[in-house]
């Protein structure tokens, strides 16, 4: 396989000097990037806010492909799971979509009584020049709820710019609610999207430490919580790519500090609890002990199971390709806990410092790649004789076609992988694909057997 000239600087093998990996740039044209677009970035970030109405202003495709797309659970309203679109047609494109947008908003707000509405601009809205801000302001005035434009035209950058557009919309919402009853020992959980109910697990841990959770942004998110999120004492930011913009806004505007955390894997989960405890120790001297006790109890519960899986997974080889690089750090560490070696790792939207960190974490010879494509990924899987590939839906058939095990660590997971119990689930997931007897029948495995 020949790596495209346009992409040669986006693949690095650890050990080669000097370290150089280009990233955070527009995808090489014609490369078949695994990335989506600005709209996708905004849509996935805001999607889990369950009592908001999400209206995609554009032709049908953008809404159709994002209908119920994430397994982000809500403990209450389910409005986020309905796909609303202005479904623009040729005449709308010619004459402008503002009237249709106005009518759609009014009707939908009357019918569904949402707490707020997000209006996502898609590519052509930016081109035909609809004044979405003006329509949103008018409807907001008339209906008395926030109507927030999301400037997510697909071509205006990368998925990362979509995160920023989503955070800008959220920033307009924060600071508009009452902070009455918010404790000095309180946090917002940023960047967990409550896949398979993960945010509930995390929230419970923090509540056990005596920390109030003001808003979960955006997993199991609620508009009123986000409106008062500026009252929290600390922001914990997971999935740094998507939510750092909002954390920085809250820091600049309201002086709220933030900490980067991850809830995947034992080490990172523990660290998140310890960091939080350290932050609040001046208000609550007992919190550090409670954190230690919690970690100890949780570990006692899950470690026997994890050790058992480790004994069966030791020495296996894994490849990782995920959206955000931050998740990859946790995965490398979590796989190491299972005795597995990461031989390839990449992300869609990593930054310089992320790849530097990955280089630090990984062993010599590991392939590190930014914004890869199916042909490269399939070649890396074959070259590195990988037993397990971790990614999302678009990576799955690449692994399966080559007879390689796969674990979905993206929108489609149905089992919580975060927290201490999540680590045990993760071990089970990995084992259930790696240990399946079906691989014995696949051509690649049979060739290997013959070669022995």
């Amino acid at each position, binding site marked *: 396989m*020949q790596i*495209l000239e*346009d992409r040669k600087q986006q693949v690095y093998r650890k050990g080669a000097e000097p370290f150089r990996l280009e990233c955070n740039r*527009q*995808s*090489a*044209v*014609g*490369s*078949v*990037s695994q*990335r*989506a*677009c600005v*709209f*996708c970035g905004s849509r996935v970030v805001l999607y889990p806010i369950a009592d908001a109405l999400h209206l995609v202003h*554009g*032709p*049908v*495709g*953008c809404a*159709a*492909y*994002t*209908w*119920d797309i994430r397994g982000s659970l809500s403990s209450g309203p389910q409005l986020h799971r309905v*796909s*609303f*679109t*202005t*479904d*623009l*047609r*040729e005449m709308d*494109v010619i004459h402008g979509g503002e009237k*249709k947008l106005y*009518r*759609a908003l009014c*009707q*939908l707000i009357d019918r569904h009584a949402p707490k707020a509405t997000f209006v996502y601009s898609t*590519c*052509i809205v930016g*081109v*035909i020049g609809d004044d979405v801000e003006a329509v949103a302001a008018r409807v907001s005035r008339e209906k008395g709820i926030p109507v927030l434009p999301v400037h997510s035209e*697909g*071509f*205006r*950058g990368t998925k990362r710019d979509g995160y920023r557009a989503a955070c800008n919309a959220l920033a307009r919402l924060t600071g508009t609610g009452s902070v009455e009853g918010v404790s000095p020992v309180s946090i917002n959980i940023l960047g967990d999207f409550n896949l398979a109910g993960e945010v509930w697990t995390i929230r419970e841990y923090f509540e056990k430490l005596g920390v109030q959770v003001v808003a979960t942004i955006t997993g199991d998110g609620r508009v009123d919580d986000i409106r008062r999120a500026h009252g929290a004492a600390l922001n914990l930011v997971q999935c740094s790519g998507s939510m750092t913009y909002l954390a920085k806004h809250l820091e600049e505007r309201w002086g709220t500090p933030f900490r980067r955390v991850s809830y995947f894997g034992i080490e990172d989960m523990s660290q998140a609890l310890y960091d939080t405890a350290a932050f609040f120790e001046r208000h609550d001297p007992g919190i550090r002990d409670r954190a230690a006790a919690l970690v100890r109890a949780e570990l006692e519960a899950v470690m026997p199971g994890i050790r058992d899986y480790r004994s069966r997974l030791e020495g296996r080889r894994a490849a990782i390709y995920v959206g955000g690089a931050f998740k990859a750090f946790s995965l490398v560490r979590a796989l190491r806990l299972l005795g597995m070696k990461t031989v390839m790792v990449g992300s869609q939207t990593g930054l310089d410092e992320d790849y530097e960190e990955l280089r630090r974490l990984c062993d010599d010879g590991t392939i590190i790649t930014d914004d890869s*494509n*199916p*042909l490269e990924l399939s070649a890396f899987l*074959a070259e590195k004789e990988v037993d397990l590939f971790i990614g999302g*839906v*678009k990576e799955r*058939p*690449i692994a399966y*076609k*080559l*007879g390689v095990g796969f674990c979905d660590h993206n929108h489609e997971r149905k089992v919580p992988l975060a927290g201490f119990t999540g680590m045990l689930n993760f071990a089970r997931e990995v084992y259930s694909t790696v240990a399946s007897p079906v691989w014995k029948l696949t051509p*690649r495995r049979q060739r290997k057997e013959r070669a022995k």
Partner: protein
Amino acid sequence: MTEPVAATRNACKLCAPLGACLALRGIEGAVPFLHGSQGCATYIRRYMISHFREPMDVAASSFGEAATVFGGGENLRRGLRNVTRQYRPDVIGIATTCLAETIGEDIAVALRGYDPETVPAPALVRVSTPSYRGTHVDGYQATLMAVVDSLAEGGDRESHINVFPGIVSPADIRYLKEITAGFDLDATILPDYSETLDGPQLEEYQNIPAGGTPLAAIRRMGRARASIEIGRALAGAPTAATAIERKFGVRRINLGWPVGVRESDAFFETLAELTGRPVPEAHQKERGRLIDAYVDGHKYVFGRRAVVYGEEDLVAGIAAFLAEIGIVPVLCASGGESGTLEAALASLGVEGAIVRQGADFATIGELARGLSPDVLVGNSKGYALARELGIPLIRTGFPIHDRVGGQRILHLGYRGAQQLFDAVVNTLLASEQDRSPVGYSYL
């Protein structure tokens, strides 16, 4: 009557570029290429992977701000060269997205002086598929038309026939090949994604999945004896078959989807007429078993009420099949706006159903609630409604995102009807059995 709803709520249709990608995946050595945003390609890939569970590579010219303002010509040329280097394709199908169309991209102009840098250069097919015009069905048909328009050649009449099957499953296409082979017919089926989108495990990754209609077979389509075009919703619209008829005088035979006995009979009779051969015994036997099964199961289904939704042709075919076995299609709905569904249903003898075109799942739900249906028949996107109504969903068509095997569902012919019938009867029996306080063990 309240004012019409301006928004589409849970669309019962997809966008035109998806149809283009599906059609192009059925051409040997072809890579679909979307001219516009990167996101369209990725979303479409994801949507199709979740159904077919196969690699589904779609390239894009990945417009940024500059391309949007100054034109995407350079992105297109560079993208085509990159695709050619990576994939070594025989064909690149360039479909436009709404972005490229809205800014008025002229691909012909952009390709003037384009140097592919490889010999032989891949054939380029261009098709206009803005998301704001029509649905995935229109994108699919437009692509097939563009393919034959740019690749088919005329000449002395030959003995083969062309078959344009519409958006059917890979299993349907495999079965169509078996049927035409049974008549000793040399048939070119376009598209043919029976292997590209339902392929075997591999030892080495294939850049472009093996299979698909060969380029040589597409070239000779203009010399065919006849074209069979499956789909009544197409009646009157320009299609690949009409293009070949107009350009090369190849007779076009338009048939409904051969779903159920009657429409399958018409399909088999057409093949018998074309070849002067009787319907092979194996198919006659399958037909015999099918009708025998209809009799065995008729009481379990009689008078049951069904809501059918999806692409117009699928809906017409399934509704005719249901009517044929004694089920009442009470609502036939499609997100498509061809305007032909009502006539197609009438010509198939389906009467009394509410027919809605341009419908979304919210509308389907609102209508269905008043119709007390027993079953939904359509793609997996009706699951939420089935769950709400507490009735079973029989999965047919595209997409099936919540089960394995969507690519292997057979809809067409006697064999497809047999599988559909067994699925319908057993689904209804199962739901009754589960609800029964007795739990009968003989049904």
